[in-house]
């Protein structure tokens, strides 16, 4: 071979290699299928992997507005506001992210058969837990089998068997169509998809795990003072990117004034739940930035209303409760007018939810005269005393405003101020969490995902935290569960929402701006900071690995 032909062949090889690379970039190879047969169309977004591995620096101090519960570190017992901590320490196969409600995380590929009887996942290569132990499908299987949190029974009842194809590929076989599998397996609606290390969990036990959790998330757990504080350190080997900050501390500060003081003195960089008496001050402070962070609608629930001895058994009484509340004024006082009076108990950002702003469901009116009239018709011309009004922690001022409105029409009670772990534990049991049947519970449940997850949770008999058990709703729900037609399921889910609202089983109040305030150390400067709240309907600004502060 002469020199000329060698040069030509080298050039051709180079061009071929370049073309190959370019082709690879333009059209990534289609993932190798796992399941045979027709597949359901899934809309799962790709993870955003940062190719440049930066260095974690600085400390992000977060002021949580209620006490911490170590139980929130354990996805296997999922309930309550645990997602805040899951996104720190753990990781899920798929989870809500800024890219979309369903975003690949530990899994790089998922499939669901069109008959909804099989689901398959392929994990990313080289995944490991924070102790260096490999994360495999054996862990995924063990998590499924040992999950005991919300909807655990449903997952177990539906499961036929789990097939481990290899270390990265797993197939769930269901006894019958499990249409909502992906909805519930997605990180927002259960803890079953958040993978905890089997070897570690078995070694330290349930309590040991709560005391010292470990996972595959971007931050390693460092320490906690039960109920008070927890701190986390960046795990530089996190698959997506090294976290932007080196340390995150989460402090439970129930007192709004203390959170405000923390922000102003620089002891806190982020503080949650800044509505109420000091919101105006937050808005006016030039050193602070804030995000309205609309989450979900506040609503009232009546545990035990189904019992005839409960005064709330009568629809007219529940309607009177709704009519007694001056929502526009409440919004003005609590949120400086940025909240929105709302007619549904599910956020419009949840899939298949009805808008409660008057377009699909009316905004509930304020009519104390009619409320009194309804109470009189129901046999309570002088109103009545009920046992307790139990507000969401720590929105006690708001609760007292509502109690004042109720008192004006003759509904008298006192407020029970629980701390968050107690409140969350009680409300997560549904009706069973509250003895007696003369109590009103104020609730909010912001979470990404479909409306039906919330219906399943709160509004059907036997739901994990059920407050409602009505034959009318049960019939609709049975229809929903029997159908695999997405359009019909959507229609039925909306019908159930309408029944819940029109029969006042739950009384919506207003769409809550869960205002978060940010201190001057948080990067980026200026209003660009709002990108931290890009995950749709997420109550907290995850993912944490993207946060950055001045060093």
């Amino acid at each position, binding site marked *: 071979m002469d020199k000329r032909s060698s040069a030509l062949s080298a050039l051709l090889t180079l061009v071929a290699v370049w073309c190959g690379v370019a082709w690879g970039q333009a059209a990534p190879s289609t993932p190798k299928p796992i399941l045979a047969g027709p597949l359901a169309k899934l809309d799962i977004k790709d993870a955003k992997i940062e190719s440049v591995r930066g260095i974690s620096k600085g400390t992000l101090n977060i002021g949580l507005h209620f006490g911490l519960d170590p139980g929130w570190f354990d996805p296997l017992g999922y309930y309550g506001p645990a997602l805040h901590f899951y996104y720190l320490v753990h990781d899920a196969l798929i989870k809500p992210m800024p890219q979309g409600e369903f975003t690949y995380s530990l899994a790089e590929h998922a499939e669901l058969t069109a008959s909804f009887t099989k689901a398959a996942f392929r994990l990313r290569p080289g995944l490991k837990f924070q102790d260096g132990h490999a994360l495999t499908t054996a862990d995924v299987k063990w998590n499924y089998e040992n999950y005991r949190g919300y909807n655990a029974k449903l997952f177990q009842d539906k499961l036929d068997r789990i097939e481990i194809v290899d270390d990265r590929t797993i197939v769930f076989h269901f006894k019958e169509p499990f249409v909502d599998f992906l909805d519930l397996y997605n990180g927002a609606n259960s803890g079953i998809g958040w993978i905890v290390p089997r070897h570690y969990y078995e070694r330290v036990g349930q309590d040991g795990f709560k005391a010292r959790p470990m996972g595959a998330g971007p931050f390693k757990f460092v320490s906690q003072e039960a109920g008070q504080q927890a701190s986390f350190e960046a795990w530089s080997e996190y698959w997506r990117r090294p976290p932007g900050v080196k340390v995150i501390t989460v402090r439970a500060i129930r*007192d*709004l*004034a203390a959170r*405000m*003081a923390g922000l102003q003195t620089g002891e806190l960089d982020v503080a949650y739940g800044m509505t*109420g*008496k*000091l919101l105006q*001050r937050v808005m006016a402070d030039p050193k602070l930035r804030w995000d309205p962070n609309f989450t979900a609608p506040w609503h009232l629930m009546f545990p035990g209303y189904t019992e005839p001895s409960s005064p709330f058994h009568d629809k007219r009484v529940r309607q009177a409760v709704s009519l007694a509340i*001056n929502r526009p*004024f409440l919004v*003005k*006082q609590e949120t400086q007018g940025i909240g929105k009076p709302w007619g549904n108990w599910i956020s419009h950002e949840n899939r298949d939810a009805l808008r409660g702003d008057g377009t699909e469901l009316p905004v509930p009116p304020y009519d104390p005269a009619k409320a009194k009239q309804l109470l009189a018709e129901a046999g309570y011309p002088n109103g009545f005393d009920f046992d307790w009004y139990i507000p969401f922690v720590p929105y*006690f*001022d708001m*609760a*007292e*405003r509502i*109690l*004042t*409105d109720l*008192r*004006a029409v003759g509904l008298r009670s*006192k*407020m*029970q*101020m629980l701390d968050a772990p107690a409140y969350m534990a009680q409300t997560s049991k549904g009706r069973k969490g509250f003895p007696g049947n003369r109590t009103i519970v104020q609730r909010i449940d912001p979470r990404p995902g479909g409306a039906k997850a919330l219906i399943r949770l709160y509004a059907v008999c036997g739901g994990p935290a059920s407050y409602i058990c009505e034959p009318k709703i049960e019939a609709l729900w049975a229809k929903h569960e029997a159908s695999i037609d997405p359009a019909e399921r959507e229609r039925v889910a909306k019908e159930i929402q309408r029944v819940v609202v029109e029969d006042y089983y739950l009384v919506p109040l207003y769409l809550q701006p869960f205002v978060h305030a940010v201190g001057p150390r948080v990067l980026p400067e200026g209003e660009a900071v709002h990108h931290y709240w890009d995950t749709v309907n997420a109550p907290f600004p995850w993912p944490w690995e993207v946060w950055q502060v001045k060093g």
Partner: protein
Amino acid sequence: MATVLERAPSLGGLSHVARRSYRIVADVPAIPLLILGTLTFVAVFAPVIAPHRKLTPVKPTPAQCQARFSMTDCPYVDNVPPFWMSGGRLDTPLGTDFLGRDVLSRLMYGARISLVVALTGTLFAGAIGTLLGVLAGYMGKWWDQIIMRITDAWLTLPSLVFAILLSSVRGPGVWNVVLILALVFWSRYSRAVRGEVLALRERDFVKLAEINGISTRTIVFRHLLPNVMNTVMVLFSLQLGVAVIIEASLSFLGVGVPPPEPSWGLMMAQERESLMDGKWWLAVFPGIGISMLVLSANMLGDWLRVRLDPQLRNR
């Protein structure tokens, strides 16, 4: 003559009584009594003398609504300052709170709750502790051992933490706070009373009663209890101040008197943010109320201690 001789001591006796009465009156801590008397009067007659209702917002004028919310009609105007400040009004002399409720009226009703809770709580504690102290001191043997060991153990418990623990078990409520105060403070009485009874039971009048076959019950209730009442009264007045603070602390922490009932501790707790926002009057007035009540009770307790102790009294 005999008549004159008989009258002379009587006159002398009268003047002695008068002089003694004058000395006592002159010695009485007038300011604490005045404060306690006023607070008690306010507490008892709150429903009559309070200018507004405790739980209902004061109805605002259209002008107030316009000025505050740019609305012609509104349910209430919050955070109206005291009358001497700009924007203040005479019909709400100490201003309104975050729900437009009259602060003065709520203070009056709050005095009622603070006093009732502290008085009854301390009273129950005194009753339990005194009875156990007398039993331990007089019966001796295993009665003494058991009661005093429990008392010792009880005394080691930090009162506020113990009260919070009990409160979280019992739940919030006025009568639960009373029960908690009784459960927290009885041991102080039993310890002091038992010591007193140990000395009393060796005295002749007790021994004579025993020799005459008087029942134990009669000895306890007729001979011992009246003789320990001085100690109990002094303790009672000193504990009263502590009870007010415990009640306020429990309510401040959200485990005492449940809202919307006005308790001074709760009023302070609810207005922490307002203090930060420059609305000082909302937290300061209940704070002054608590300070005055506690200080008065302590001064009265000190005075009683001196009056009822012959050694201190004649010093």
